[in-house]
């Protein structure tokens, strides 16, 4: 509970700071010209650093979790993806994990009914998690229309698809609605379910709140406090071409949006959000279960003290002879 309150407090302090920066035009230069590059540099180097730090530890043993029939006798039907025996299977397995959250799809819940545990399907976490992550990705990709000129056709196509239903003016993007649903579910679940609240840390709440801040200010900018998009794109293109210019007359909400985004860029590599990179390195998922067929080499495999047969026979020779067991030395 304390973690929840502190993260809400931290989020509001951050929002107030953003508000202050938005109101105080003397800080506009810092926010527009210096902070974006710093934040982006931290994201890049931080991400790479974290991956290299994980990667610098070797994988001594081949420890995939097998979730299907392994490859053995030729007439036994194997599950080449859930229990991969080669590189293609691993690629398929990883793709399922990354794009479809395969493991989370297995989720069940349990309740004691009539003195017996009963397992129920619990796909909501999977569904809302997937909704959140995919819409987040789509939103980021859609934003590329501000960052490239001319706009690549696929970006336009993505936006058109996302705004397919043409609800309202400007069009409501489905991904915007979806991310709100996903975020709300993930946050409420953390707050309402006692077990999840019990395990939640500051970073768990704060990450969700921060992204919610980005999403909310973004949506406000689009639908309620419209910004001059021409100026917005000019600003973004200024960053991309290393010639940023402080735009005139940009709304307060838009400033807050920028502030939250920059904090997110910095927060990302420093926090649990790095699970985005970490999943690629997970040894229980990214290795083929062909251990007996192909030897895995442990780089630090060191000799150990063993109890040799000679020592064993020396201790038990008489008994072995008495039982008629063959011995090496009479």
């Amino acid at each position, binding site marked *: 509970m304390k973690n929840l309150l502190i993260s809400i407090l931290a989020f509001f302090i951050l929002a107030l700071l953003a508000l202050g920066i938005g109101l105080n035009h003397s800080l506009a230069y810092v926010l527009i010209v210096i902070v974006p590059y710093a934040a982006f540099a931290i994201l890049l180097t931080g991400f790479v650093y974290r*991956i290299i730090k994980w990667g610098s530890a*070797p994988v001594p043993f081949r420890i995939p979790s097998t979730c299907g029939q392994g490859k053995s006798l030729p007439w036994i039907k194997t599950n080449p993806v859930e229990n991969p025996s080669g590189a293609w299977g691993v690629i398929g397995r990883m793709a399922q994990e990354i794009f479809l959250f395969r493991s989370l799809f297995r989720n069940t819940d349990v309740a004691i009914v009539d003195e017996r545990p009963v397992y129920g399907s619990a796909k909501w976490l999977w569904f809302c998690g997937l909704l959140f992550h995919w819409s987040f990705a789509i939103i980021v990709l859609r934003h590329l229309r501000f960052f490239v000129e001319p706009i690549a056709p696929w970006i336009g196509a993505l936006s058109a698809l996302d705004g397919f239903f043409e609800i309202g003016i400007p069009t409501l993007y489905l991904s915007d609605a979806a991310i709100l649903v996903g975020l709300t579910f993930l946050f409420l679940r953390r707050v309402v379910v006692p077990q999840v609240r019990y395990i939640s840390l500051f970073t768990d709440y704060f990450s969700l709140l921060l992204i919610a801040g980005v999403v909310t200010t973004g949506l406000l900018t689009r639908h309620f406090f419209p910004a001059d*998009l021409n100026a917005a794109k000019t600003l973004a293109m200024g960053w991309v071409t290393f010639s940023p210019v402080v735009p005139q007359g940009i709304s307060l909400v838009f400033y807050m949006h920028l502030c939250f985004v920059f904090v997110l860029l910095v927060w990302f590599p420093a926090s649990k959000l790095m699970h985005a990179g970490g999943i690629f390195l997970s040894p229980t998922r990214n290795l083929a279960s062909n251990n007996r067929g192909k030897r895995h080499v442990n780089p630090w495999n060191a000799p150990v003290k063993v109890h040799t047969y000679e020592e064993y026979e020396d201790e038990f020779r008489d008994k072995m002879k008495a039982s008629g067991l063959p011995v090496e030395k009479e």
Partner: protein
Amino acid sequence: MKKHQWGMIALGLVIFIIVVTFPFWYGKGKTSPPPQLSLDTPAIAQLKEKRCVEDTSFMRESHMKFLGTWRDGAIREGKRLHTARDGRVFEVSLSGTCLKCHSNKEQFCDRCHNYLGAKPSCFSCHNIPGEAKK
């Protein structure tokens, strides 16, 4: 630790950096100036006061919502006249009012819309004066 395999990790990181820096290399660093909107039409040239229905910054930021209210008012309530904040009265008509001044859709509307990837659905119904004659 000579057996340590960096290949896949390095490949992954390279892909990550390429993807994340997409805007930087996609445009090849070329600076492209923001679109200049042309107000050079005969109708605008004749105006004494170069003023749209509302002031420029409002029109820039909110013309889409504004036109939306025009559309809804005209179609659903038959409101055919709009009184601007300064008291001037306009006929509620995209082709008749907006495009009368901004008769250069390609140099005015489209430039900005293309720059921002906005695809308004106005012209899927409304005809564009002049274009029909072509």
